[in-house]
């Protein structure tokens, strides 16, 4: 199969390098290096436009217009922002650990860019088709948390340190439901490779396992550190959390990597639950696949934005309760349930009976969960209301 590193263009390029008297292996590595440089440059340019998109989305949610002065629809605005960030003064606060302090934004950005290595953009346009793609996604995703604790520890600031501690607590908690949510597409497709999961989705997994999608959406929001789970940079408590002491381009890298991380996770939502690049005619014309994929990834990105600008921030103890007392038991129960229904319906795989069966069983599971939660909430409410007459004097 074709990929980002072995196609007519790279073959031609490495042919040119060999023609200059280069060792074929070295020519191959150099070509791959150029291909990656190209991909990452495209990603960084995309990131610039994400800043604009983010500002436009938040403006619309808050009933404003957003940037509209520089260029058509304010499209030049992010470039002006970048020039401003580059020429801002480079401040090192007192007592900063310079090496770690400078390394943190680099690792943050790197952890996001590494995710693009396994991004299935279209049937022939992907970086590396790792057979352990899902595990790779989880492993690299944790690197971002490492950079947050590096930033918090090296900044020599209490706010930064508290923000970093909180983020680690959140990450180690919400990683469990996320891993389980990723196990569900793995069960259904029988593979850990992200491109294989896309190929297996004759019917989008959001139709087969809507609850898995919701689970992934919630835990990914926490993993990204976005509202309502943005405790690491809670403005009203910690000012800016881990990047409080950063200025200029280093702050810009934190900001840009957050947006790119969100878009990347929008892309993974598309790949795992919206059918990736699949759509009418995508197998024959791969460029259509890229088009479909970007549309679906943008929808995923917009979903994160919708959640961010609609919900207020959750207190940290409520957030840990939500994870450990609801999401973890719920996710494992769902995993067992999906594995069971999948095994029971194994004879009908590929027919409409399997699809309808999976969907209906998922809806049933969701209904039972909601019913249990409702009863529990009613019990709690009655407990509170039962106390009141005593307080009023026993009537």
């Amino acid at each position, binding site marked *: 199969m074709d990929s980002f590193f072995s196609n007519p263009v790279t073959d031609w390029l490495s042919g040119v390098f060999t023609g200059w008297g280069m060792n074929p292996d070295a020519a191959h590595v150099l070509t791959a290096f150029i291909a990656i440089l190209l991909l990452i440059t495209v990603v960084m340019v995309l990131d610039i436009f994400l800043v604009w998109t983010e500002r436009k989305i938040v403006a619309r949610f808050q009933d404003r217009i957003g940037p509209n002065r520089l260029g058509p629809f304010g499209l030049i605005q992010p470039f002006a922002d970048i020039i401003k960030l580059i020429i801002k003064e480079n*401040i090192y606060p007192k007592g900063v650990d310079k090496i770690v302090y400078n390394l943190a934004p680099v690792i943050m*950005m790197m952890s996001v860019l590494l995710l693009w290595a396994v991004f299935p953009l279209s049937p022939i346009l992907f970086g590396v088709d790792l057979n352990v793609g899902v595990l790779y996604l989880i492993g690299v995703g944790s690197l971002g948390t490492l950079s947050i604790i590096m930033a918090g520890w090296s900044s020599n600031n209490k706010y930064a340190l508290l923000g970093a501690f909180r983020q680690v607590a959140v990450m180690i908690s919400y990683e469990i439901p996320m891993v389980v949510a990723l196990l569900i597409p793995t*069960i259904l497709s029988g593979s850990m490779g992200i491109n294989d999961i896309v190929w297996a989705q004759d019917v989008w997994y959001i139709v087969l396992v809507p609850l898995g999608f919701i689970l992934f959406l919630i835990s990914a929001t926490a993993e990204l550190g976005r509202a309502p789970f943005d405790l690491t940079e809670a403005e009203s408590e910690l000012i800016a959390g881990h990047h409080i002491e950063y200025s200029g381009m280093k702050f810009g890298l934190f900001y840009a990597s957050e947006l790119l991380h969100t878009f990347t996770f929008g892309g993974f939502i598309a790949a795992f639950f919206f059918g990736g690049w699949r759509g009418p005619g995508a197998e024959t014309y791969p460029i259509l696949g890229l088009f479909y994929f970007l549309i679906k990834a943008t929808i995923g990105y917009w979903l994160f934005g919708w959640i961010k600008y609609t919900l207020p921030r959750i207190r940290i103890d409520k957030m840990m309760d939500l994870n450990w007392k609801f999401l973890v038991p719920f996710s494992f129960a769902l995993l067992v349930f999906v*594995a069971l229904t999948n095994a029971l319906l194994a004879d009908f795989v590929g027919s409409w009976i399997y699809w309808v069966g999976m969907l209906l069983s998922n809806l049933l599971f969701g209904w039972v969960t909601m019913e249990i939660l409702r009863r529990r909430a009613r019990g709690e409410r009655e407990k509170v209301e039962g106390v009141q007459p005593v307080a009023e004097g026993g009537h």
Partner: protein
Amino acid sequence: MQTEWMYIGLFLVVGALIPAAAIIVAAILSPRKPNPIKESTYECGIETVGENWVQFKAQYYIFALIFLVFDVETVFLFPWAVSLNQLGMFAVVEGIIFIGILMAGLVYAWRKGMLEWV
């Protein structure tokens, strides 16, 4: 297989180079006029009191312990999930028992009041 991981390695190098280049370019282009007020630690306008590297709650450590159990568990669950379609009902029941034992651990921690963030 080896070339795949070589590509990942190249991604690692390029992915670190580009942000590093951005920081270096900014460091060259930006002015450098430090003064003591500018470099002081930000804490709502007043001088920082005491050590900056504060201690965090011990509860944190318990969550890390519980997390570790579940994180190691997922390493076992991934191969189980991949081969589930070939192994059939027997593997599903085995997986349920495995998850059930771990859930008992979670219930124990819950009953002991270890899941409270106080």
